[in-house]
């Protein structure tokens, strides 16, 4: 008998993820801000009609979350910080201000603690470091309780179990063993341990021996992974260090379109969405449209020079 690979095509991965999200729309996204976000998977899920999503992430997100809001796929955002860092997220902002989505006021420990509880298999994670912020008054992920050891008032972060998690990493083998080559691995490993279903895009596939010769480089063993998809530049316009840097120009241009839409001129944003998202181009078409191999080389060069 032969072992079955977990390496699948993008549409096969979406055939797993999208029905699962219809069943329970809790989607968690890997990476952090402009790094290693699973953008190609996000575009594919939007093209496949994902709707009404509750979005989770490591505590900081930006472009991809804003894009999903622009595509009208989001019901609620459970992410402490949503920002493009150098500017606000235009569609996030517009959707919250017009009350089209709910943006919960949260903090990092509540989200991370909830994922820790889920990964650890316990009902909650105690938190002792939350005080005096108005965020505590509105945070739906935590509740107060009395510490059975000290008697102090602590917060319990309920186990947070995403139905589906999308991650992006640099490498995997065909069995689904994942290798992050970046220095930062964010909360990706924790999310993989905390989630019902895990789909990972990777920039390249490596031979079995690459994994076996250095098992400590495996960041997420295949046990946690339901499907791995080979998508070169799958994090664009976010970075996939050390392979390519974030495409700040692309994100800025997108944000300009978003700000225009927010101020009443949605044409540019609509065109962006129909070209890059609902038009569902394959990854090669997408790359060609956002600047092609030439643009990718610039981003690769930038990452290589660090």
């Amino acid at each position, binding site marked *: 008998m032969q072992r079955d690979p977990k390496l699948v095509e993008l549409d096969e991965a979406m055939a797993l993820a999208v029905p699962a999200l219809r069943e329970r729309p809790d989607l968690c996204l890997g990476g952090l801000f*402009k790094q290693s976000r699973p953008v190609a998977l996000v575009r594919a899920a939007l093209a496949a009609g994902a709707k009404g999503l509750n979005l989770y992430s490591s505590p900081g997100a930006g472009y991809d979350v804003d894009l999903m809001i622009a595509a009208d796929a989001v019901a609620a955002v459970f992410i402490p*910080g949503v920002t493009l860092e150098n500017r606000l997220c235009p569609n996030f902002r517009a959707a919250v201000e017009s009350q089209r989505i709910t943006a919960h006021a949260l903090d990092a*420990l509540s989200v*991370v603690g909830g994922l820790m509880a889920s990964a650890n298999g316990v009902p909650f994670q105690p938190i002792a470091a939350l*005080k*005096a912020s*108005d965020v505590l008054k509105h945070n739906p992920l935590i509740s107060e309780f009395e510490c059975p050891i000290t008697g102090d008032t602590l917060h319990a972060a309920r186990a947070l179990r995403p139905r589906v998690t999308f991650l992006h990493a640099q490498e995997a083998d065909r069995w689904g063993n994942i290798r992050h080559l970046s220095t930062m691995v964010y909360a990706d490993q924790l999310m993989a341990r905390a989630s019902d279903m895990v789909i990972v895009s990777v920039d390249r596939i490596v031979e079995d021996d690459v994994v076996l010769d250095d098992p400590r480089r495996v960041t997420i063993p295949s046990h946690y992974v339901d499907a791995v998809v080979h998508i070169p530049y799958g994090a664009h316009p976010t970075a996939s*260090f050390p392979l390519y840097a974030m495409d700040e120009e692309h994100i800025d241009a997108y944000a300009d379109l978003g700000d225009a839409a927010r101020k009443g001129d949605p044409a540019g944003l609509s065109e962006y969405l129909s070209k890059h998202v609902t038009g569902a181009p394959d990854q090669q078409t997408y790359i060609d449209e956002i600047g092609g191999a030439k643009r990718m080389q610039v981003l690769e060069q930038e990452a290589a020079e*660090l």
Partner: protein
Amino acid sequence: MSDFSPLEQMTVVLARDLKDRELGAAGAAALVPMAAIALARELHAPNLSIGGEMFFNPYPSRLYPSMLDDRALGRCEGSETFIELFGHSHHGLDFFFHSGLQHDRFGNINLHFVGGTLDAPKMRGPGAANLSYCHTSTRYYICPTVHNVRNFVGKVDFVTIPGHLDGPQSKRAAGLTKEGPRFVITPRAVMDFDPDTLEMRLKSVHCGNSVQDVLDHTGFALNVPEGVGTTPPPSKAELDALRNKIDPTGELRH
């Protein structure tokens, strides 16, 4: 025009207050804080450790507007994940940095919304990831890169990051036992907090600004103690280290 930028002035003020053997991290708006930490390490605090935000002791070759990614910090002495960050957030650091959409007279910071309510805000901000370092760490610094009547207000619309709340009593009642915000450093001036009332007050004004300039750009009646002077400008040694070793691309001067 002075021969150094407002951000360079902010950087050296912050760096001077960081001690050798301390542990701290730069926070979200990290350009100036990371420059300050690097300058302190270079000049007087070689055993100061950077940690608590997933990178330990990075050696960035230059500064970036964002300083929480592999581009800036990938060359370092170790990396961690959000699980370890959960622990650091409880154990606290020696120092941290914050800034927001609004800062009020007690040093409270708002990153969530301006006008309206949380559910129906007039303007929705980014929120904030880590709220805990502000009260688990020994102290923190407020260092926004703008200073005007809109971001310095009498009372924030929403307390994202607690400062001194409404003063000593409320701080005590909330169980905030650490120093909280020590200084507010902006492109115009340095503020600190009256130890009795914990209200913000002017400490010194940067070269090229007057006390009146600062008051005109602050959205509440800022206390001005007697004898407020000029912020000591960067020394030649500070500027040399900053420009040659830490900020060769001049991000602090753009």
